């Protein structure tokens, strides 16, 4: 199952390597990973998606949690989290179809961020399946190039504690 993990980590060299190492040393492939500074600039927030067996999910969270640089690790896979991704797509499209493309892109609340006589660059954010739908729509207009950010996620409520009770007092708000 695709596991969605949100991490609050110290913004230090090697922190990303350590987290990634826990996943890769167990043979898990990282499907997406986003990382940027948190409100406190000495911390970073990471969102990771990886294909992990159901039985391995708890263990993975605990093994990431015990890293010295990790302040909090939360499994958002089955929780009520807002999950968003961003995509930039360059579509090669010419002539009369350009106007139709702009109309259809609006359905996805996508924006044109760059244009040339033969291309548009479209920016969109949304859930992964919405972006997948946008991508397949734009493909119908012509060849495309694409860059995706991978998922970022935030829990909807603050009552999102780890499934292991002894972690409760260590939980922090902010993830």
């Amino acid at each position, binding site marked *: 199952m695709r596991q969605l993990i949100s991490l609050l980590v110290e913004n230090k060299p*090697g922190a990303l390597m350590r987290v990634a190492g826990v996943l890769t040393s167990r043979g898990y492939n990282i499907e997406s990973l986003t990382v940027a500074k948190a409100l406190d600039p000495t911390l970073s927030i990471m969102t990771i998606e990886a294909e992990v067996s159901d039985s391995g999910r708890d263990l993975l969270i*605990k*093994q990431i*949690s*015990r890293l010295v640089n990790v302040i909090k690790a939360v499994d958002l896979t089955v929780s009520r989290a807002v999950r968003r991704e961003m995509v930039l797509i360059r579509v090669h499209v010419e002539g009369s179809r350009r106007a139709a493309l702009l109309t259809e892109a609006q359905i996805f609340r996508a924006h044109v961020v760059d244009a040339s006589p033969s291309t548009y660059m479209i920016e969109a954010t949304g859930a992964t399946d919405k972006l997948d739908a946008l991508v397949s729509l734009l493909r119908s207009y012509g060849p495309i190039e694409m860059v995706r950010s991978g998922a970022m996620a935030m829990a909807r409520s603050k009552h999102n504690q780890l499934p*292991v009770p*002894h972690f409760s007092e*260590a939980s922090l708000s902010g993830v």
Partner: protein
Amino acid sequence: MERMSGARILIESLVREGAEAIFGYPGGVTLPVYDVLYAHPLRHVLVRHEQNAAFAAQGYARATGKAGVCMATSGPGATNLTTGLVDALLDSIPVVAITGQVPQSLIGRDAFQEADTFGISRSATKHNYLVKDVDELAQTVHEAFHIAVTGRPGPVLIDITKDVLLAETGYSDDQDMLPLRGYRPELDPDEDSIQRAVEFLWASERPYIYAGGGVISSGASDELVRFSELLEAPLAHTVMGLGAMPSEHPNFISMLGMHGSYAANIGVTECDALIGLGVRFDDRVTGRLDKFAPGAKVLHVDIDPAEINKNRRADLGVVGDARSVLRRLNAALEGTRDSLGLARRPQRLAWMDRIREMKRQHPFTYTPADGEIKPQDLMRRLDRIAGGDSIVTVDVGQHQMWAAQIMRFNAPRLWQSSSGLGSMGFGVPAAIGAKFARPDKTVMAIVGDGGFMMSIPELGTISANRLPVKIIVMNNNSLGMVRQWQELFYGGRYSQVFVEAFPDASLLGAAFGIPGGAVADPADLDRALETAFSEPGPYLLNVQVSPEECVYPMVPAGGAVNEMIMEPGPAVAAAGD
């Protein structure tokens, strides 16, 4: 604040953190550190290979519970340390490793003796650092020791660039250190889980305690013995746990697992409550996991939350330091013994009788033979000399298992074995570290002929320091455990297991200035051992043992622990002096 170089700050910080000795090997980028050591009282022990610096630091740490310190230069020095660090990681042994790194101006340019030590050691350590600013050095050393010895102990590596070692800044012994944000080991269990554990324990009819290295790390031996006595429950150890409960205690049923005792393996299969203390349900203990303690509910105590439910689901998981948990449990058991404790007591006493009967009927056994020294007989005699009170380090293989089965340890921190990683070549350098830590103790390294060949350079360290370490080579002219598996599971097709050209021990010893000898006749064994142990300094004794002997009982890999292969032939008890 006195201004000093990074190299000097490193050494002063090590002293401040309580280091008594560094096991190390110098090189180009650590020259500034060695220049400071030239006139510094902190002891440095020059080993003969960096891997052995890490093992010796472990020997020190295992004997004391304090962090052992090792040091190596960049590149090959650092990569050579790695095996010893992974070994410490698997056995949760506190080690602080210092490595030099090429100057920052050269990092990433494939400089001479440059290796990505920070990257290489990431998965070999509990935590690691690359120090690029001299102002962070003292704080980093402080953090490294704190992380190494607290929580679940483990190795921490500090990689320091040469320019940091040369740079100067202010340093004072009493400067404040910052706390760590992402690292808060939980030491105390919550009260609710203690209450539930007590109800769980008193409800059991066939309780079984399975205690490991975590009990030794936390210094919980007294509490463990009290716990076993309060519950009136049998106790088996992992190979890491030996010595936590005195081997002579009536509740002690030796080791469980692949080469565990009959009573321990049948006991764990039949118990209804399995109490795991500072253990990790390793595959060498559990055998086939779904047949391990199949009818038992599990209470698992460990300081590392990631161990709970990792291999075996715990019905009740308690996260905390073993000593803290056992103290609370013991107090709660004492308070309820005459109320809750009475209901199932008759069943528990009957169970204990049954376990003791199995222990009496099925001791570790071997078949004596005329004219050759049986390895088990060697271990009996070494046990008599050790008296349950000497430090015994071992390598990995048959001799390790026989020593674990037969030798008695009546206190913790006497038995040292590379248990998780299973590194051959561990025993001799670990004995060096142990002897520095405990000069008052008899220290013997019991090794096989294969592992000893990996440790020969350290005869130089032993000789140069006149360390009274006794090296006993149990020589069966083969890599015995591999040979045993080839005999039992590969149709006797012995492939690359005969270590030929073993050196003459007295000549080899003499070449290093160490007295040595060899013995092959059982009639001469006692005299040879007496010579070895009465010699005031080091001694190297090569003991020729039966080459074909196998370690029994044996649970085949992936088998259920109650399906042991037992010693064939007319066997006699191996222990029982």
